[in-house]
């Protein structure tokens, strides 16, 4: 029923619209006799939800304006014209109120509107606003919920500051606040506030990524992540946009990323950003903190495995900041003096030292609101050294020494300039270099009065890349954001360099054998458009890459499509389709007998690996729980495998030892988060299969990839009884991965003696026992007069599970041959103390 007064005061007793704007306006016409004039394409595809009673026509029209981004005007008392809202683009920067550091990946939503935007890695965002005044709601898991109201008139740039929160949940994968489920195309981890300790109490930034559905460890002893059944080299790990080739220390125990300097980690598993579409499995985009632009901060920690220090602060207040950090393990520092003390009066001394280190440095300069420049540097690596010395006071004054070493290093340096050319156009220019090298060596010397010899040999492998890139973001209208860019990468691969030196009273040799260095170039251009529509967005684009390698050019088109649609306020569906190619790869090291990573390019005979992926995910959110369930399927071509038993390191014909074929992986991913008062829980389950078919391996039949781990489960339970104390329980389970064991044994003759030989008929023919462990830890945070402290104590692998490291044939108690499993990392303590000033 409608009571007629003046047109604007027309009352509507009840209105329930849950349909398109077209149908809703028709419904209003029936209730009020007011006619509407509009263009069909403006109202046909726009949905809205209005449920009001005892309201007026004016209120209803205002609500329609808010929800549907349309405007209206009364032509006469019986006719209302509905037309598209005219608005403007405004852009802004989101800053940490304490440090003035830029906040990436925050969700910004105009109050009352369904559309939201996400700040980029530089804290920048742009919004299309149609009202004179705007009320923004800003959500980021590490910050207090922000609201910012402002008048649009005269403003084009906004500066919004958020206050950090003191305590947060362990894994902030899901968006807690947003009225609708976030439209982010990636999983996000914020390590600065994730206190999940792992081995020794280390709070490793990449550790939390392993808890996400579809992500797993390779296995202990092998470095890297396995994402949806792909190998570790199929993950593109970026540090401030610069590729890092080795991301884990000490056989994969923990990553190079120190949690105290990492701002955020984004994991892309579906239809990667076109710019970074150069690996097959994932993009792990790690952003480092820029440093506090207002005051100097110091974070120092000491633990069982390592100690570190991080310092950041302003050089020019609010303009230029720095951030540096250093971390080192120190088992060697403690054990080497002890070993020397024990050997003090012995003629025979020996020391073994194992250590790793990381050094980060970053400068961030923002001369004005439209420009910023950052410089990022990193150096880190692992080293294992062993020395023995025999020194005798005999008549020959004999000294015998032997030394061995194996180590790797990452070295990266990059500069980025971001400029806001207008409220619609952002420009980013970047130049970087990233290098990785591996070296092992051994040395033996004997010195006597009339006799000396000195022998040494070394092996070096590595790669170096130089990268230039230009990227442009253009908001060409309120519903479309275009990203485009070009780039070039110059690679120099050094498959191996072997040096041999021998000097004695008999001979002198100094020889270096160097394999041909391989120079390769990659050029790419990409275009990708993100179209927003009501309750969702679609991203589609293509990356075209050309890779020049020895005597061969490859050109690859890599299309992508990612559709995200909120079905309702509590449910979302997404679908992804993408093609990825990979031009550089880690040589499968099944047969080297050493834990080494060797990066090599595609060649004339080894074509670029390719993966076509289809994925879909459904997310449902209830009051206290958010559930997501997804499926994926990937098809590989030109996937590489090392030919059984072949030697990689010995000559220039290394590519002949690699075989290529096809593969597929598929699976199901489930994630759930539950929050109830002081208790929060996150759980994920992944069903993932990974298979390969390669001629000349396993008779050309399909076989299990070494990354096939059908089931994996991760659970974290956090109980925070105060804002400063919490108990964390972490459990992870993964099926064992396939390994190659012999199928038979037989006798052969070596030096006239019988020796048992093993027959390897098939590869990956045996599945290791499953890996699982439960960790319990207690975190205590305290605010003191001059500093804040954090104390971690806990137990790793509480029930002392013997997780597999390797398998061999040994003898059981009955002196019969048996398959034996060797395990490291039994039940161990966690202990770490840190202070922040």
């Amino acid at each position, binding site marked *: 029923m409608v009571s007629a007064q003046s047109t604007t005061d027309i009352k509507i007793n009840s209105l329930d619209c849950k349909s398109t704007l077209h149908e809703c306006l028709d419904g209003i016409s029936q209730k009020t006799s007011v006619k509407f004039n509009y263009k069909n394409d403006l109202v046909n595809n726009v949905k809205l939800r209005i449920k009001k009673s005892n309201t007026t026509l004016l209120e209803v029209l205002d609500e329609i304006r808010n929800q549907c981004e349309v405007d209206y005007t009364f032509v006469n008392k019986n006719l209302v014209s509905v037309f598209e809202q005219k608005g403007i683009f405004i852009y802004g920067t989101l800053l940490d109120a304490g440090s003035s550091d830029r906040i990436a990946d925050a969700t910004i939503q105009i109050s009352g509107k369904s559309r939201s935007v996400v700040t980029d890695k530089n804290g920048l965002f742009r919004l299309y606003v149609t009202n004179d005044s705007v009320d923004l709601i800003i959500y980021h898991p590490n910050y207090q919920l922000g609201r910012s109201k402002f008048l649009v008139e005269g403003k084009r740039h906004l500066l919004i500051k958020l206050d950090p929160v003191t305590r947060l949940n362990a894994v902030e994968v899901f968006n807690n606040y947003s009225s609708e489920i976030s439209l982010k195309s990636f999983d996000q981890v914020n390590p600065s506030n994730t206190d999940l300790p792992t081995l020794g109490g280390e709070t490793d930034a990449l550790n939390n990524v392993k808890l996400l559905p579809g992500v797993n460890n390779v296995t202990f002893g092998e470095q890297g992540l396995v994402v949806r059944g792909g190998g570790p080299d199929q993950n593109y790990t970026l540090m401030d946009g610069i590729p890092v080739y080795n991301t884990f220390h000490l056989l994969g125990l923990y990553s190079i990323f120190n949690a105290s300097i990492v701002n955020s980690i984004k994991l892309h598993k579906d239809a990667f950003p076109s710019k970074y579409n150069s690996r097959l499995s994932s993009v792990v985009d790690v952003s480092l903190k820029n440093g506090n632009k207002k005051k100097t901060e110091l974070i120092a920690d000491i633990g069982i495995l390592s100690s570190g220090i991080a310092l950041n602060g302003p050089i020019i207040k609010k303009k230029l900041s720095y951030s540096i950090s250093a971390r080192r393990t120190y088992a060697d520092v403690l054990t080497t003096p002890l070993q020397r003390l024990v050997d003090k009066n012995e003629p025979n001394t020996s020391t073994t030292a194992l250590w790793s280190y990381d050094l980060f440095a970053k400068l961030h300069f923002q001369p004005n609101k439209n420009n910023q420049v950052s410089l990022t540097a990193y150096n880190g690596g692992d080293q294992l050294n062993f020395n023995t010395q025999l020194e005798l006071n005999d008549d020959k004054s004999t000294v015998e020494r032997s030394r061995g070493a194996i180590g790797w290093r990452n070295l990266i340096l990059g500069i980025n300039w971001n400029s806001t050319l207008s409220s619609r156009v952002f420009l980013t220019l970047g130049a970087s270099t990233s290098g990785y090298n591996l070296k092992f060596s051994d040395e033996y010397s004997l010195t006597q009065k009339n006799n000396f010899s000195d022998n040494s040999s070394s092996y070096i492998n590595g790669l170096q890349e130089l990268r230039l890139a230009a990227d442009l973001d253009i908001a060409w209208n309120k519903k479309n954001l275009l990203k485009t860019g070009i780039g070039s990468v110059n690679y120099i691969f050094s498959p191996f360099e072997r040096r041999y030196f021998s000097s*004695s009273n008999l001979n002198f040799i100094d020889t270096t054998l160097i394999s041909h260095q391989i120079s390769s170039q990659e050029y790419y251009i990409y275009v990708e458009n993100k179209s927003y529509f009501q309750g969702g967005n679609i991203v589609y684009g293509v990356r075209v890459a050309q890779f020049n390698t020895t005597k061969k050019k490859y050109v690859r088109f890599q299309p992508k499509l990612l559709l995200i649609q909120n079905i309702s306020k509590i449910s979302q569906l997404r679908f992804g389709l993408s093609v990825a190619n990979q031009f550089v790869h880690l040589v499968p090291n099944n*047969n080297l007998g050493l834990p080494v990573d060797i990066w090599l390019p595609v060649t004339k005979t080894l074509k670029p690996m390719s993966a076509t992926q289809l994925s879909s995910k459904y997310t449902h959110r209830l009051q206290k729980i958010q559930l997501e369930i997804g499926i994926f399927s990937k098809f590989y071509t030109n996937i590489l495998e090392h030919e*059984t038993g072949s030697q990689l390191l010995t000559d220039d014909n290394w590519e002949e030892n690699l075989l290529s074929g096809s593969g597929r992986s598929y699976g199901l991913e489930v994630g759930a988060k539950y929050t109830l008062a002081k208790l929060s829980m996150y759980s994920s389950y992944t069903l993932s299969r990974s298979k390969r078919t390669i001629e000349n391996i396993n008779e050309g039949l399909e076989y299990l990839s070494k990354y096939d781990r059908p089931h994996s489960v991760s659970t974290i339970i956090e109980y925070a009884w105060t804002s400063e104390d919490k108990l964390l329980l972490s459990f992870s389970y993964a099926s064992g991965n396939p390994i190659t064991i012999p199928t*038979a044994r037989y006798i052969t003759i070596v030096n006239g003696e019988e020796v048992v030989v093993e027959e390897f008929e098939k590869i990956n023919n045996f599945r290791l026992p499953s890996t699982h462990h439960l960790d319990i830890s207690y975190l205590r945070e305290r605010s003191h007069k001059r500093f804040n402290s954090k104390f971690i104590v806990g137990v790793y692998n509480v029930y002392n599970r013997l997780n*597999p*490291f390797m398998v061999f*044939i040994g003898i059981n108690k009955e002196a019969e*041959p048996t398959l034996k499993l060797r395990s490291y990392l039994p039940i161990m303590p966690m202990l770490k103390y840190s202070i922040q000033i």
Partner: protein
Amino acid sequence: MVSCEKDIPLGNEVFKKKLVINSFNRADSFLSVNISESVNILGIPSSSKLSGDAKVLVLKDGLILFNDFIKVDKGNFTIPFKCLRQSVYELQVAFEGYPSIRAKDSVPLLDPVFEIDTLISQLNGHKLIFELNDPVQRNNYYLQLFAKGKQWNGTDSLEVTKALNYIADDKIFISNLLTISRDNSFSLFDDELINGNTRKMSLKIDNSDLYRKGFVASEIILKLSNVSETMYVYYLNLLENTHVYGGPLASTSRENGNIDQGLGVFCFYSNTTRKVKIP
């Protein structure tokens, strides 16, 4: 780092037994063959288990040299024909209960040419220096060391010859990274770095290998073989197998040998032996 070990079940691994050939034939000697069978990986293989009649076919340069049943005695049988240098031999064996096997290899032309230069006594051992004169043709070498001496058992002694471990860190051994600086009683190298020239090489021998468990060495025997490519690759694979499965230290050996439908190797070599008294 603490490590623990435990037994794990093998599972339902399917095993098919095969015939194993061990036939290492010196040039100008009779062709001799040992046949045995492969066993499950938790079984204990034996080289002297098989006895009975085997159907044997031997071809020399494509022509039938021998084609008859032959008595296998504890795995062994001999074909009464000498292996002629530069000839290609093919062996086919059928034995009841096993797939028939076939293998082919050629006999090297030349004996290695080398002389022992000197044996130097050192603090804990000896250094043996020898000089190799490499011919122009491509050669693969197999270097073995033995110690000859007396094995004492109380007051009784017995003359024995034992394989002797040594370290060979000459750069020619770096063609196989696992050979260098590792105690072994044999090593392998090719002549890529010698390239038809003369080369002095040294081997380090620890005294503990010369004098232990009642054994007193009096003589060192150096045996250098020029081996066929088949034999070279076969032994190279044996050296590289770490016998570890899974994890970063794993290595899987290439399918060994040249036996079609079977295992082991049928190969040829020529060799030269030199001896030196221990001072």
